[in-house]
């Protein structure tokens, strides 16, 4: 397999296989939807490829939770930085291409996911997940968690935290929250405790969130909206597509089961032949061959 070179006649996304990075979102398309008063920074750790021997490999992302009086926004700061690098390159008219991810450490990986609570409608959660050139969006009721309070305590970034346990869509979690900050929010979809959630441990050890920063500063909360603007006219913009949660789960499965099929589905044109690196011999590259390309298993957060 290593000896096969793939010739992509037109490849919209120039990211290498194995890096599930979609195209960058255009900073010029950011729409202000509120102002946050509290900013919490979480270190999000997750294991990938839990089916193989490499399951000990842990990736991290630095995620931010912006909280205003009415809405909250949880997103990846790494993904945001990749967007900014592309934006800066575009406005400075940088030639010769730009690699927006080469600043990342080998164990760092941006998660192109955004979660907006109470945005546009109170009680609803807007979720976005970017694949290739599309940000897939689904909307659901803000989940109600069944919490069981535990006696464990722990100190997270100087805050004494109480603990609670919950089960949510096929996974069990233990969380630590502080009632010194009476905000009923947390990372990802977590909410509903009488204090800010500062640490979450998924019980199988696959996912973990831990607060590393906390500030009472103000700033704008944004959502990407292609209608707002574009840095460069001729470059195709990230599309927003509303689907159901189940549809998104099927797409996420394709990320590791059929990555080439997923690229083709998003407009990439595949080569019709491959070259053997040793013999330089041309071989036809058919749709049946696509399935030979598999990526490491990406465990989903929600199993149900």
């Amino acid at each position, binding site marked *: 397999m290593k000896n096969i070179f793939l010739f992509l006649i037109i490849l919209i996304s120039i990211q290498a296989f194995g890096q599930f990075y979609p195209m960058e979102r255009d900073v010029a398309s950011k729409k202000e939807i509120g102002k946050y008063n509290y900013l919490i920074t979480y270190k999000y750790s997750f294991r990938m490829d839990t089916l193989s021997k490499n399951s000990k490999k842990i990736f991290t992302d630095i995620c931010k939770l912006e909280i205003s*009086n009415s809405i909250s926004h949880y997103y990846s700061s790494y993904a945001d930085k990749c967007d900014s690098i592309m934006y800066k390159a575009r406005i400075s008219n940088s030639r010769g291409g730009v690699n927006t991810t080469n600043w990342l*450490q080998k164990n760092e990986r941006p998660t192109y996911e955004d979660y907006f609570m109470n945005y546009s409608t109170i009680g609803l959660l807007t979720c976005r997940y970017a694949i290739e050139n599309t940000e897939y969006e689904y909307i659901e009721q803000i989940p109600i968690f069944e919490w069981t309070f535990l*006696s464990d305590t722990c100190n997270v970034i100087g805050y004494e935290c109480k603990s*609670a346990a919950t089960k949510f869509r096929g996974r069990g979690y233990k969380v630590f929250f502080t009632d010194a900050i*009476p905000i*009923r929010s947390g990372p990802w979809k977590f909410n509903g405790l*009488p204090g800010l959630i500062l640490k979450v441990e998924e019980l199988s050890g696959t996912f973990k969130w831990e607060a*590393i920063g906390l500030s009472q500063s103000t700033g704008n909360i944004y959502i990407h909206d292609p209608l707002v603007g574009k840095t460069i006219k001729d470059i195709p913009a990230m599309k927003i597509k509303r689907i159901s949660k189940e549809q998104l789960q099927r797409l996420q499965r394709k990320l590791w089961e059929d990555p080439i099929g997923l690229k083709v589905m998003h407009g990439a044109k595949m080569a019709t032949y491959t070259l053997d690196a040793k013999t330089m011999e041309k071989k036809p590259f058919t749709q049946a061959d696509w399935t030979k390309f598999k990526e490491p298993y990406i465990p989903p957060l929600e199993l149900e």
Partner: protein
Amino acid sequence: MKSILYILFALLLINPVYLSGQINISGCIKDVKNNNGVSDINVMLQTKDGKGLYSYTITDINGKYSLNYLGNSDSLRIAVAGLNIKAVYIVIPARSRQNMDINVQYEALKIKEVVVKSSPAKRNSDTISYYVSSYIDSIDRSIGDVLKKMPGIDVAQSGQINYNGTPIGKFYIEGMDMLGGAYGIATNNVRARDIAAVQVMEFHQPVKALKKIKISEMTAINLKLKERAKGTFNATFLLGGGYKPAMWQGEVTAMYFARKFQTLNTYKTNNTGEDVSKEMGNLYGGTSSLNAITGIRQPGTPPLAKERYLNNNIHAVSLNAIRKLKDNLELILNGKYYHDSQNSESSSVTTYYLPDESPLVIVEQTEANMNIHSTNFDAEIKSNTDNNYLQEKINFTGKWNNDYGRVNDINQKFSVPKISVNNIFQYVKPFNFTTLEFKSDIGFYNLPSRLIVSPCIYPQIFGLPQDSKINAGQVVNSRRFNTRNSIWAAKNISNWVFTMFAAVNASLDWMDSSLSSKDGVKSDSQLYTVPDSLTNNLYWRNMNIQAGPGVSYKPRESVEISLYPFMEYMNIHAEDRVKGGITNLNKFTFNPSLSINAKLTNDLKLTARGAFNESYGGLYDTYSGYIMTDYRVISSKDGKLAHYKYQNYYVDFNYGNPLISIFGSLKASYWRNNSNLMYGTKFIGSLSRVESFSIDNLAQGYNINGSFSKRFDGIATTFTLSGGYSNTYRDILREDKILNTQYGRTDLGLEVISRFGENVRFDYGITYYRNSNTIENSNEKLKPIDALKQNCTFNITFVKNGIIKLLGEHYFNNSVQSGDKSMFFADISISYRAKRIEYILEGRNLLNTKMYNSSIYNDITAYEYNYGLRPLSVIFKIKFSLR
């Protein structure tokens, strides 16, 4: 019936809830100001100590709440908290049903902020970024101060930077190379607080057009400025005065770093012993030059900070600028000038071990006064893109020395005005079919030197009786013109890079010399007639053509194996115009090299190389007339051409893992050199006469050294452990007998830079050396020299912006015969910064240690010296910064 009713009534009292142990607490949370219910408030039922939580609820639109408890506690705590509500805690007895209305008041929520700590360093492929904010503290001034604390990096007093024990090859500020090899100016003068990150780039190829085709083993450093430091002019001024002796110090530094223009200019003067010329020197080294072969005898240089011993009077100016004319076209101008007068004084004992004889011991009381004017100008234009590289650089260097020396009762006077002009041109162009590189280097050097020794203690070299009172004058005039031109082509095919190299080099050398005597009556110009044996007049023309293919193979992206088998044809035309002989030589040599560069992991790199090189000596290896190189050494090379066959093999492992803050290196090398000539020394009294003899001989040696550096971020401490061991085996010809010698050196060092709390910084270093020498075919047993150096510094912040620095040093040398084996030094400095002005009071050499005593081996010669030091002194300085 009545009793039944009582029972029923009792059962009603003990309601079912109570029977099951459940307690209900309900009520309303009200605003204390208007008694209205407050909605959306957290009401928690906690353990009495508040550590555990039983249940919680949120108040409804009317402020109402209701909580249930099922347990055995006798007391409970109700906690009421909400956004912008002052938290209320009430401990209550656990009773079946309670109605509790609780008053709250509005209060803005104030949370304890936590700043996100970024990791102190990160690796991205071959680039490691050290974030200055993770290393800097209030004591640090220049970026050099902070670089020292970064694991894997060390900084010399001159500003030279080593990464994992190897000197860096390029230094950039925001990607611009303004200073070239004189980057010590930046290390010592750019403020640490203006720098956001220091990037270390391993395997750095500075020519963009060669990036994928020519591997480079060079490490480079790039300073990333903070946004506020970009495009902002800054200047600092320093003025100081002190005693003893009467001392002054003055400095002006002006700098400006913008995207298209950078400049860094300094003027520094002092007589406090700070050798500010060092930071202006070329720290990359390696430029071919012509150096004087004669000079006055100078005391050995102690391995101390120069402020301890240097008696100087220096004025140094450096002007540097870089301008981006277009996107990728840069104009660089550098000008440097300094004048220095340095005085030094020492007494020494030199012991020459001789075959089958008692050692020859020479005792010298040495004084030296060096007067130097030095100037250097560079103008360079450079274009560096992926599609081409063009460099045109012209350099002018002038150095004028007027040195005076005195050894015992013998005076020496030496003067040399040295001038050189150089032009470097390089052009690289990638084409579709190949990449071409053309390099040209043309230089002219002029070096007329004159050494006068009075009186000459060995008049017999002039055929005069020993008791003759004469002076000796040695004139050596040297000139050189050389040019080196090469073309290199490379073609990348799959995993292979095929190269072809050709070079045409030529050098013309002229040297005339005369060693003459004169008596004390006649003027300098009236010299006695000089015999032929004391004169030289040589002309050399050396042309060589080098050519050869090369191949690099990359079995994987991370591994590259390169083989370069070069052929060289050499034509030497040598004229001895005194003897009247002309020699023409044509020689072929073969110089192959094989190298491997491999990234074993992301953090571990391997470099290995083996090379064979055959070469011939130059004009300065063949002069036959005697030249007095100093007051007691005369040498003649007898006109024979030296021929060397040199092999060198080394392997380097480099490790740098910023995630766990561990850096280290392990280097091992072996070399051997076969030569056809030996230079033998004969002693006539204390006069050394050096001559060459045709004796095939072999010298070889090996060297192993390593370093390990670890930063503990939690306690802000960097540990560095280093060590080395080397052995050299060489034959030495002394008094017509060959001595088989072995010279060994061991060193071990530990350095700790740490901080106790916010207010105390502690640095400690200890280094141990051992020099051992053996003469295998002699009964002479040479005692090993053991030496130790320790230094300890405390920086204590006693008030905000006020720092006391206490420094102690200890040196020990077990072989010192005259004077103390142990020497101690202590310094103190108190500084206080008020906004942009800093006041510094320094007390130096508080123990008033007068001498530095040391003993070292130089092949089979032992040299012991006592060097006079600067006395106890006090200096006060004021430093002012515009920004």
